[in-house]
C-alpha cells in the first residue's frame, strides 16, 4: 500500500496483522478442541449419546402352561394390553390425566395419584395405570395417543385360567413381588412390580413357569417418544408343568361341594384323591374357592378384602393348610394298630352296652342302646365307639401313636406344594413336651376315637388310607408328573416316591380293608352313600364335635348356627379288592360324614371308576344311580344323628350326647 503513506496506514496494517493472528489463534484452538472432543474423547461421548437416546424396554414373558395328566390346559396365558405413564414425559400433567380419565371413564385424579411423582429419579420409571384394557377403551386411548405424551400402551401377556375356579388352590395365585421377596437370592433379576407366583404351584414352580424376559431397544427423543426400533429380543414363554391331576376328577370333587341340595347351607371343606399305587394327586379341591384369574393382574381393593376378610377364608387350601381332629376316620388306624400289636385278632369280640366306664367316668357310644357283641369288622362297619375305647385302653397311647405315625399321620406328607402344615399324633412324650404334663390313661379313651389331641390334614388321611389300601406303602403325594420345556420336551420326570412303610402287616391291613368295605357295602354300615355301581368301595365315616353338646341341647340340627355344627369326614378307597384310588373328604360343619362327606367321595370315585371302565356310565349323570346289588342302607336318623361317631368328647362336658 505504498500509495497510502498516511499515518493511519502503517497502524492499520500492523493492527490487522494482530487481528489475523487472533483469528488464527481462535480457530486453531477450536480445531484442537474439536479434535479432542471428537477423536480423543469421542468413544466415551458416543456411548453417552447411545445411553441418551436408546431406551431398553423389558418385555414381559408369558408364563408356562399347566396341564392335567391328560394334557388338558389348566393354566395358560393370553395377550392383553396395559396402559402406563412415564411421569417425566408428561407435558401437562393435570390436563393429560383429566383427558385420560375422560377416555377411560374413570377419575383423572385417581390415575394421577397412581402415577407417582414428577420429581426425582422415580419420574423416569414407568408406572402401570390400567391393566388388561378392553378393546373399546384401548381404541380410544390409542387414537388420542398423540395428545397424551408420556402415556403409552404396551403388550402384557396375562395368566389365564380357562376353567376359572377349577383347582384354584392347587394352581395358586400370582401377585406383585414384595419387597421382602426381592431381597431373596431366588428372586435375583426380578424388578419391583414383577408379578410372581405367591401360592400353590405358581409359587412352587415360579422359576420354571416364569419364562424369559424379552427386550426391545428403541431410540427415543428427548421427550421420550419412540422414534425407531433398533432390535427386539422377543420374550420366551415359560416351561410347562404336567400335573398328576385328572381334570374330570377335579371337576367331580368341586361339583360335590358346589351342588348343594336345596335348603342346605354351602358346603366348605376339602377333598383329595390319590392314586394309591403312585401317590398321584388326582384331585385336590378346597371350598369355598375363588377365581385365580382375579390375581393375574392388579387385584382391586374390594375383591382383595372380600377374599381375605371372608369369614370362611376362601384362600386357604383346606386340604393341606388346615388340620382337624380325625373323628371316627381314626378308627381304621386304631383297628390296624390293635391287630398289629396283638391286642385283638379277627375273633376278638367286645360287648357294647352303649357306654364305657373308665376311671369312674362314663364314656358314651354314639348309639345309646349299644351295638351288642362286635368284632373288629363289625366295629368298623357300625363305628362302635365302645369297641375302640376298649382296645385303645389296652393298647395305650404310645402304641397307638407309634402305629398311627407309621402311616404318616400328624406330619407333613411332603407334597410338592408350599404351605403344608403338619399335625398331631398325641403320645405321652408329646404331651410332656407340649404341655409339660403326663398323659392320663383316661385321655386314651377319647384318643381311641380320634377326639383327643389328634389333628390331621385331609391329605394326611388320604395318604394313610392309601397305605391301608396298597398294603402299607406310605407314598409321597405326587402333584407334578414332569416338567417340560416350552416345546413339550421333557426336562425332568418325577418318579413316584415312597416315604415309608407302615409297621402294620399286609395281612392285618387286609382285615382293616374288610371292615372298611363293610362300612360302605354292608347293610348297617355308615357309609352306604359312597357306593358306586359295579365296584366295591371301602371307606370310613367320621364326625367331629365343634362345641360341647350341652350348649346345643334341644336345638334341632338344622337350626344350629353353621359355625357350631359338627365337622364331617369320609375316607375311602376303591376298588376294595384291588385298590387304585383313595379319597379323603372333609366337610367343615357338615354335620355327618355319612350324609355330607360320603356323597362327595362317591362322585370322585364314580368318575374315576367310570373312566377306568369298572363302573357303568349312568345315562343321566345328574342323578346318582341306586346301587344295583344292594339298595341303599337305611340311614339312621335316631336323635338326628345318623352315623354319629362323635359321642366321645375331648372334654368331659361333651360326653353326654343325647
Amino acid at each position, binding site marked *: 500500500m505504498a500509495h497510502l503513506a498516511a499515518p493511519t496506514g502503517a497502524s492499520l496494517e500492523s493492527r490487522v496483522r494482530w487481528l489475523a493472528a487472533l483469528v488464527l489463534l481462535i480457530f486453531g484452538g*477450536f*480445531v484442537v478442541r474439536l479434535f479432542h472432543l*471428537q477423536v480423543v474423547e469421542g468413544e466415551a461421548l458416543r456411548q453417552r449419546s447411545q445411553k441418551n437416546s436408546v431406551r431398553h424396554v423389558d418385555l414381559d414373558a408369558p408364563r408356562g402352561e399347566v396341564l392335567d395328566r391328560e394334557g388338558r390346559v389348566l393354566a395358560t396365558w393370553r395377550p392383553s394390553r396395559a396402559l402406563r405413564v412415564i411421569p417425566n414425559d408428561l407435558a401437562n400433567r393435570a390436563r393429560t390425566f383429566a383427558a385420560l380419565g375422560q377416555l377411560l371413564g374413570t377419575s383423572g385424579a385417581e390415575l394421577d395419584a397412581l402415577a407417582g411423582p414428577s420429581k426425582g429419579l422415580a419420574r423416569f420409571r414407568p408406572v402401570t395405570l390400567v391393566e388388561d384394557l378392553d378393546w373399546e377403551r384401548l381404541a380410544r386411548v390409542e387414537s388420542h395417543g398423540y395428545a397424551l405424551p408420556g402415556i403409552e400402551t404396551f403388550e402384557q401377556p396375562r395368566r389365564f385360567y380357562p376353567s376359572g375356579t377349577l383347582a384354584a388352590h392347587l394352581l395358586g395365585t400370582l401377585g406383585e413381588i414384595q419387597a421382602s421377596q426381592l431381597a431373596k437370592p431366588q428372586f435375583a433379576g426380578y424388578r419391583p412390580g414383577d408379578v410372581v407366583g405367591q401360592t400353590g404351584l405358581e409359587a412352587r414352580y415360579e422359576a420354571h413357569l416364569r419364562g424369559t424376559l424379552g427386550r426391545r431397544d428403541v431410540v427415543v427423543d428427548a421427550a421420550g417418544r419412540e422414534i425407531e426400533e433398533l432390535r427386539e429380543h422377543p420374550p420366551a414363554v415359560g416351561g410347562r408343568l404336567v400335573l398328576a391331576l385328572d381334570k374330570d376328577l377335579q371337576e367331580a370333587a368341586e361339583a360335590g361341594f358346589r351342588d348343594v341340595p336345596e335348603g342346605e347351607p354351602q358346603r366348605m371343606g376339602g377333598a383329595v384323591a390319590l392314586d394309591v399305587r403312585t401317590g398321584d394327586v388326582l384331585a385336590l379341591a378346597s371350598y369355598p374357592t375363588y377365581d385365580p384369574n382375579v390375581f393375574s393382574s392388579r387385584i382391586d381393593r374390594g375383591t382383595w378384602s372380600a377374599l381375605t376378610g371372608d369369614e370362611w377364608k376362601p384362600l386357604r387350601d383346606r386340604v393341606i393348610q388346615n388340620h382337624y381332629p380325625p373323628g371316627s376316620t381314626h378308627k381304621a388306624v386304631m383297628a390296624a394298630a390293635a391287630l398289629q400289636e396283638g391286642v385283638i385278632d379277627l375273633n376278638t369280640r367286645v360287648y357294647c352296652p352303649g357306654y364305657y366306664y373308665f376311671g369312674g367316668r362314663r364314656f358314651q357310644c354314639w348309639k345309646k342302646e349299644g351295638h351288642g357283641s362286635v368284632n373288629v369288622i363289625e366295629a368298623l362297619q357300625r363305628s362302635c365307639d365302645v369297641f375302640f375305647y376298649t382296645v385303645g385302653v389296652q393298647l395305650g397311647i404310645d402304641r397307638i401313636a407309634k402305629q398311627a405315625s407309621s402311616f404318616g399321620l400328624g406330619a407333613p406328607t411332603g407334597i410338592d406344594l408350599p404351605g403344608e402344615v403338619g399335625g398331631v399324633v398325641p403320645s405321652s412324650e408329646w404331651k410332656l413336651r407340649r404341655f409339660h404334663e403326663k398323659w392320663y390313661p383316661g385321655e386314651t379313651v377319647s384318643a381311641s376315637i380320634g377326639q383327643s389331641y389328634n389333628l390331621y390334614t385331609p391329605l394326611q388321611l388320604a395318604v394313610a388310607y392309601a397305605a391301608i389300601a396298597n398294603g402299607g406303602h406310605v407314598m409321597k403325594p405326587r402333584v407334578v408328573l414332569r416338567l417340560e420345556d416350552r416345546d413339550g420336551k421333557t426336562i425332568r420326570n418325577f418318579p413316584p416316591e415312597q416315604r415309608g412303610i407302615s409297621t402294620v402287616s399286609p395281612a392285618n391291613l387286609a382285615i382293616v380293608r374288610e371292615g372298611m368295605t363293610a362300612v360302605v357295602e354292608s347293610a348297617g354300615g355308615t357309609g352306604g352313600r359312597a357306593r358306586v355301581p359295579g365296584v366295591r368301595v371301602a371307606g370310613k365315616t367320621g364326625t367331629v364335635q365343634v362345641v360341647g353338646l350341652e350348649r346345643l341341647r334341644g336345638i334341632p340340627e338344622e337350626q344350629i348356627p353353621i359355625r357350631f355344627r359338627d365337622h364331617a369326614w369320609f375316607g375311602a378307597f376303591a376298588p376294595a379288592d384291588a385298590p387304585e384310588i383313595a379319597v379323603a373328604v372333609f366337610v367343615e360343619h357338615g354335620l355327618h360324614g355319612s350324609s355330607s362327606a360320603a356323597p362327595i367321595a362317591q362322585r370322585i370315585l364314580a368318575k374315576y371308576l367310570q373312566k377306568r371302565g369298572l363302573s357303568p356310565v349312568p345315562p343321566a349323570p345328574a342323578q346318582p344311580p341306586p346301587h344295583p346289588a344292594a339298595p341303599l342302607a337305611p340311614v339312621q336318623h335316631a336323635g338326628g344323628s345318623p352315623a354319629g361317631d362323635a359321642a366321645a368328647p375331648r372334654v368331659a362336658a361333651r360326653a353326654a350326647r343325647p
Partner: protein
Amino acid sequence: MIAVDRRSLQHFDWPLLALVLAILAIGLVNLFSTTQPLPPPEIGVASEFKTQLVALALGTAGMIFAIVVDYRRLERGAPLLYVLALAGIAATVLFGVEIRGNKSWLRLGPLSVQPAEFAKLGLVVMLARYFHRHPPGEMRRLLDLIAPALLLLLPVGLIALQHDTGVAVLTLAIGATFFLFVALPWRTWALLVAIAVSGMVGTWEFGLKPYQRARVMAFVNSGSGDSLGSDYQAIQSRIAVGSGGLTGQGWLEGPQNRGQFLPTQHSDFAFSVLAEEWGFAGGATLLALYAGLLLWGLAIAANSKDGFGGMLAVGVVSMLLWPAALNVAMVLGLAPVIGVPLPLVSYGGSQLLANLVALGLLMNVSMRRYVF
C-alpha cells in the same frame, strides 16, 4: 453511482465469493437436517428451511446491491443508516414481540425481523466513517474516544433494554474491535481495561437474569454431572460433538439431532449437529473455511485503498468473527451458553440477510481496491 466499470469487474473477488458460497452451502445442508420435521427414518422439508431459502434469496439480492453501489457513497449515507438502526432497535423496545424471553423481534406484516442484526451493520458503517475521518492512529488521548464510544454504547444500551444479552455483548465486541486500532498509551489502555472489568461485574450483578447467571455458573462448574440442570444444553452439545468422531454419524443420522436432545439445534447449536453428523472432518472443514474467510477479509482491509474501505472491511470481519467465535466456543464447551447464532450457518433470516449485505460490502471494497 450504481455503475460498475469493467475494471472493477475484472477485479471481482472470486475466491471470497467461493468461500461465502461454500459456507452457505454447508449451512443449508446442515439446516435441512436440523429442521427435520418428521421422526426418523422419514424425511421432510421443514417450513424453517423454506423460510431460510427466502432469506437467502433476499440476502443475495442485498449482497448484489451492496457490491454494485460504490462503497464510498456509503460514507455519506452512514449517519442515515446509523439513525435508522437506532430507530429500529428503539421500535423493537417499544413494539417488539417476545420470543423465548427475548424481546428482539419486530413484526412487519408476515415477517419477523431482528432489527439488532441490521443495527450491527449500521453501527459498523458509522464507526468506519468516524474512524476514517478521525484516524485511530492519531488518537492518543482518552478524550478522543468519548465520541466514538457514545456512538457504540447508544445501540448497545438499547439492545440491552431488549434483554438480548448475547446480541448486546456481540455488538459491543464488534464495535470495540475498531478501538483496537487506536494508538493510546499503555496507561490509558490499562484504565480502559479497569473500566471494562467493572462494567462486567456490574453486568453480572444487575444486567443478567437469574437463568443467565446460572448458565455462566454451570459453565464454570461444568462436569458436575447434573445433565438435567442448567448444565443440560452444554452437556448435550458436547455429547453430540463428541459422538461425531472422525467422520460423523452421517447426514440426517445424528441421534442427538434427530432425537431433539439438543436445544435449538437449528439455530444456536447448528454447529453441534454438523459435528455430530459430519464428524471432525466436517467440523474442521467449516472452521477452516471460516478462518479463511476472516483472514481474506483482513487482507482486504490491509489492501484497501482508503481508510474508510479498510475500516469497513475490519468491521465486516468483526461482524462475523465475534458471533462465530462465541458460538463455536459455546458449542465446544469453551464458553457459557449464550444465545448466539453462527453467522451464515444457523437458522435466522435477519442474521443471514445482514451478513450477506455486509459480505457484499466486503466484496465491494475488495474489487475497488484499484479504483481511484
